[in-house]
């Protein structure tokens, strides 16, 4: 057994959020260690070969692999130790355990930060009628197969969901010679960035079918056909059913925070599907933080990285115990938000949130009964975009505030 102790901060998950926090923590003098279940650090960014990363943090528009290498250079130069191929299996008697080819790892640390990323929503949680052939993948899976293994996942491909991952794969697969027959989106608006609609779909004349859904799948052992129809404002199928002959179907229908390993002990928010945390991303498990996509699905990696520093803030500030807690309540047109709890430590902080539907020329406010504590105006805000609103905890008198759109 490998027994590790005397660490200030253990980071479980060596993706961008974990690596960023690790190197910043080490720079501030904390004895830090990283664990990851894969062979190499870097998390999902290893397979994200498109640009759009590092714009805020490094002022460069980098690809996933480039950003990871940048972070790894710092991690290595700072001498932060790390264990790869190490799968966390949970806490027992206040120690954290991992299975690895080196043996069982038993870890004791003052603080733990979990940055386990997200999992993709798959077919099982959607429900589409029909058979269960092969040829049905999540977009991330297809991305790995294409970019890391250099293999083809099919010849004629349909994509369900207009989130960024789906759009990016539409382009990627087209560039690699496969035919993408269309992207089907159940909502009347697309879920990804306008940049990706332009550069992934419009550039290649891949049709985007808004307000459409896939009704049925056909194919005995490998996918052969999908049946599609339009939907009305209640998302119910209407009109003619169209058939498409495809041999691969990609799901890009949403990400879910990956916190399964802590499920036994964590209090989970049923809107983010991630843990309930305070503004320092501290969970109900003592000395345990959750950051990045495993806390809430971020829209930009840079945001996930920057916000991970809240953990460092908490550890270094050594604040008093037993501070009063404020509950943040979900109000009108807010889809989800984090943190759900604020501790009244007299500091300014921010709440990250998403809206339920597109809003135009509206305000997002934080109020305590009738008193407005903070507000932010939006000319346009779409559900796919995550935004933030600042709050000064000094201004809060009561124990409840509400976040809403007015």
């Amino acid at each position, binding site marked *: 057994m490998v027994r590790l102790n005397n660490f200030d901060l253990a980071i479980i998950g060596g993706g961008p959020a974990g690596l960023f926090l690790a190197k910043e923590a080490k720079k501030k003098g904390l004895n830090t260690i990283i664990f990851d279940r894969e062979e190499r650090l870097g998390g999902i960014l290893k397979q994200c070969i498109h640009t759009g990363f590092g714009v805020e943090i490094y002022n460069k528009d980098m690809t996933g692999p480039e950003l990871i290498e940048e972070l790894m250079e710092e991690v290595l130069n700072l001498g932060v130790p790390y264990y790869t191929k190490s799968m966390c299996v949970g806490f027992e008697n206040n120690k954290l355990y991992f299975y690895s080819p080196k043996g*069982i790892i038993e870890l004791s640390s003052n603080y733990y930060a979990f940055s386990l990323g997200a999992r993709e929503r*798959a077919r099982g*949680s959607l429900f589409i009628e029909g*058979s269960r052939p*092969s040829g049905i993948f999540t977009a991330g899976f297809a991305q790995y197969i294409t970019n890391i293994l*250099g*293999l083809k996942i099919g010849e004629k491909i349909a994509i369900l969901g207009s989130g960024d991952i789906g759009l990016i794969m539409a382009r990627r697969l087209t560039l690699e010679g496969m035919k993408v027959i269309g992207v089907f989106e159940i909502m009347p608006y697309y879920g990804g960035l306008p940049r990706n609609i332009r550069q992934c779909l419009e550039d290649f004349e891949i049709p985007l079918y808004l307000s459409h859904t896939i009704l049925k799948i056909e194919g005995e052992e490998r996918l052969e056909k999908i049946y599609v129809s339009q939907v009305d404002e209640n998302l119910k199928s209407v009109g003619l059913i169209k058939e498409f002959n495809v041999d691969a179907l990609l799901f890009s229908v949403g990400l879910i925070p990956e916190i399964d390993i802590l499920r036994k002990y964590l209090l989970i928010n049923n809107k983010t599907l991630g843990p309930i945390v305070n503004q320092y991303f501290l969970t109900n498990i003592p000395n345990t933080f959750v950051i990045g996509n495993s806390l809430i699905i971020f829209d930009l990696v840079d945001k996930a990285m920057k916000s991970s520093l809240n953990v460092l803030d908490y550890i270094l500030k050594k604040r008093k115990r037993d501070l009063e807690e404020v509950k943040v309540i979900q109000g009108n047109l807010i889809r989800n938000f984090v943190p759900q709890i604020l501790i009244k430590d007299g500091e300014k902080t921010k709440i990250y949130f998403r809206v339920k539907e597109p809003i135009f020329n509206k305000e997002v406010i934080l109020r305590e009964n009738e008193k407005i504590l903070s507000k932010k105006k939006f000319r346009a805000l779409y559900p796919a975009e995550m935004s933030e609103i600042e709050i000064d905890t000094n201004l809060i008198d009561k124990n409840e505030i509400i976040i809403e759109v007015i």
Partner: protein
Amino acid sequence: MEGSSKKESWLEKDFDVVIGGGGIVGASIFRELSRYELNLLLVEKEEDVSSFGSTIANTGIIHGGYDPIPGTLKAILNKEGKKLWRDLAQKLNIDCEFNGVLVLAYNSEEEKILYELYDRGIKNGVNVKILKKNEIKKLEPNLKETYTLGLISEDAGTIDPFIATINIVRSSYENGGKVLLDTEILEVIREGESIILITNRGEIKTKIFVNSCGFFGKKFLKDETLIFPRRGEYLITDKNLKGLISRPIFGVPSMKGKGISITPTPHGNILLGPTSYIVKEYDTSSTLKEREEILEKVSSFIDFNFFPYIIRDFAGVRASSKTKDFIIEFEKDSNVLHVQGIDSPGLTASPAIAKLVSNLIKEKIPLVKKKNFKETLKPNINLKKLSKEEIDKLIQKEPSFGEIICRCELVSKGEILESLKIFPYPKNIDGLKRRLRVTSGRCQGSFCTIRILKILNEEWNVPFEEIKKKGKEGKIIYGEIE
């Protein structure tokens, strides 16, 4: 190599008994007959046993035995099978749980039916007890308390039908039974005291042919119309609902059968279903209508939103007989023994069906017991059953047991590698799924599939495009990008 798709020299011989169908029934008969000095062969049309038909789509319940009509084969074999399973599960390392099965009545009409079941149970000589409301609440505190009466069979339980079939076949093989996969029996020619089986890969001559081919064996019956297919759909949840219910819960049966249940599996998932619809052909697609039906029925048992926990739906077809009982008998004038119409309680009855078949065969050919029949199987390594110290020791000896491939079900590379070497060998991803539960967890394979593909690519030395998810055409990868 036994179990391969090549026609070996030993096929030139004649067999004493050929068993058609590598599902739970065929496998059970296979094992029972492998106790005797026989030239014995199991023939399966798919690439793997336990990969098709009713075996892969049932609720996995070892039934109490109060449901079948007294005096029928179903009643007799349910009772006997239930007893035999405990011993068999232990000998062959089959995951199972015996917490009983509960049937609930919600009004006076249903209570009448419940008492009928109770009477039947007494007549069938099985364990049954009527429960009052407070007793039900103690056993299952999370249910909606709208039930008025209950019935429990305390020695009933649940079992993993895949592992059961696979391990039973393995045991038979280790006792000398031979297996031929990828071989479909197309025609059965009765020639006096022998049978000639015309398969897609040649002829097989045998003294006795046991038709336990399930739905695909109905064509060998003199009257094929006796068998009709019924489709059933299931929803399955992930493992985060442990403790919600402790045993299968049923409502009272109807004309369609036992009805939709909530059943916790030995692995910790919850199965919701099955529905029951007569279909025209072998159609295992899922429908929205049936999904809604399942969720509605389940909501009458328990006030719980299963929606966020459902990870998969699947459907299967069982072969039911118009006689409403099992058909287990030799043809009048030939050595073809039909084992047909095996729907519920087929899984429960399997070990008893095997004994009955063996007795029927005894009347035709002499059965001499083998002296060294191996009753047990060497258990496979299963990390979930070991302590941390044991796992650490194991990893020190063989590091691949420390490399976790399936995160959701906690399966290591070492276990996968081992599984590839144990007969009957897995042939594709679904084969590994049935043996190790990989890809059947919450993420439905999005983490592990790639890693499994890599392992198979290396171990089998085949290009990625030849590794299938299931069957022969279910390939995952189309080849390298240009």
